């Protein structure tokens, strides 16, 4: 039961490295971006795991309740804005991929490199 308290961190490690694997081995640029967003989600999971307090609840103060334990609001604030920034950067990446497809006719990394070498 003691070790079960670390399960969140193990899931974080595996998901993080799954995303990294997609980024470094996949040649398809969209697959690379998907890997990047998995990597990013894993970091969110790490932060949110740290905000949990035993017996706590979401940090919304209720009137007249004084003995309630609250989870830590700070990691939540950081990650809330990070999610919105994450979609913005993903959108920018996808826009660049679309332009690469229009210029090269492919979004496979090795084919793009071959085209660059030939020209």
């Amino acid at each position, binding site marked *: 039961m003691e070790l079960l*308290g670390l399960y969140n961190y193990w899931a*974080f490690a595996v998901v993080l490295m799954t995303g990294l694997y997609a980024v470094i081995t996949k040649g398809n640029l969209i697959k690379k971006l998907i890997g990047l967003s998995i990597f990013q989600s894993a970091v969110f999971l790490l932060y949110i795991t740290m905000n949990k307090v035993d017996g706590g609840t979401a940090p919304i103060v209720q*009137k007249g309740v004084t003995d309630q334990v609250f989870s830590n609001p700070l990691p939540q604030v950081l990650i*809330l804005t990070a999610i919105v920034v994450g979609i913005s950067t993903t959108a920018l990446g996808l826009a660049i*991929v679309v332009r690469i*497809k229009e210029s090269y006719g492919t*979004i496979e990394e090795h084919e793009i490199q071959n085209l660059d070498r030939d020209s």
Partner: protein
Amino acid sequence: MVILFAVFLLTLLVLTAVAIVRTENLFVAVMLTGIFSLLMAANFFVLDAADVALTEAAIGAGITTVLFLGALALTAEHEKSVSAGRWLSMGVVIVTTLVLIYATFDKPRLGDPQAPVHLHVAPWYLDKTPEIIGIPNVVTAVLGSFRGYDTLGELFVVFTAFIGVLFILSGRRGRHLPSNGRASSSTDQGLGHHLIPKVVGRLLIPFIVLFGFYVQFHGEYGPGGGFQAGAIVAAGIILYALLEGETQALKVVPPPALMGMVVGGAVLYGAVGIAGIVLGGNFLDYSVLADNPVTGQQIGILIIELGVGIAVCGALLSIFHAFAAREPS
């Protein structure tokens, strides 16, 4: 009981991540990404982060999936497998995973109240928010007031990404006008000829938009705020665009209005900061906005959340239209 549920959700999360990476059909991968985000949102909710769960469900599962599908429609649906260097990178990744797992044994256990992260400034925010800001949701208070500079910066990151996408995707293959006789393209038609999506979608859209407004204006009392509300309203209008066609959606919210929303929202946020200086306080100090400092804080947070909501909604819709308006090459 809760921990068993959490373990179940996390295991599903890991399996989904592995499945996303393994599949070579990008359409399947994108659909699995939506499931991944929904599982992630459920995990956040189990971990007491209601605001973050709402954001992840609206943005991760909703808007990201639509943007990836839009990009797939313009590129290719299948990836070509590359085998070079696969085992080497697999080895590196496995070794790094083991090192990370070894490092977790030094971490505080999940939910430990004595973990260092809970002992520094977090109790101060929880104690002082009712006194200084006077609103129940501590996350909104920290986001809007205590860390207002940070949120302003994040809003400008969204703004910059919006400008970037418009720069990259406008141009020769850009907008096709409805008058030039190309109304037969798939983005113009939408899903209007499918009866069930049309009926169900039309029923849902008003409620999605209404819920977005609720999340916007109730963000001080419950989970929610400008970022979530902007994404939810944008999702409602994107659903409309998918059902009725791109052209029809652009008639409802025309591109100049979208530009105005993004710029106006960001300017509204900045203007509240400047108003603080003019009235004798610091930049983004809301206490001086009213006679009573606590009322001033509440007014300030309400206005900046409105600015965030409008700007995020406009930016996400503009990005969606930039992808949808492009002809496949």
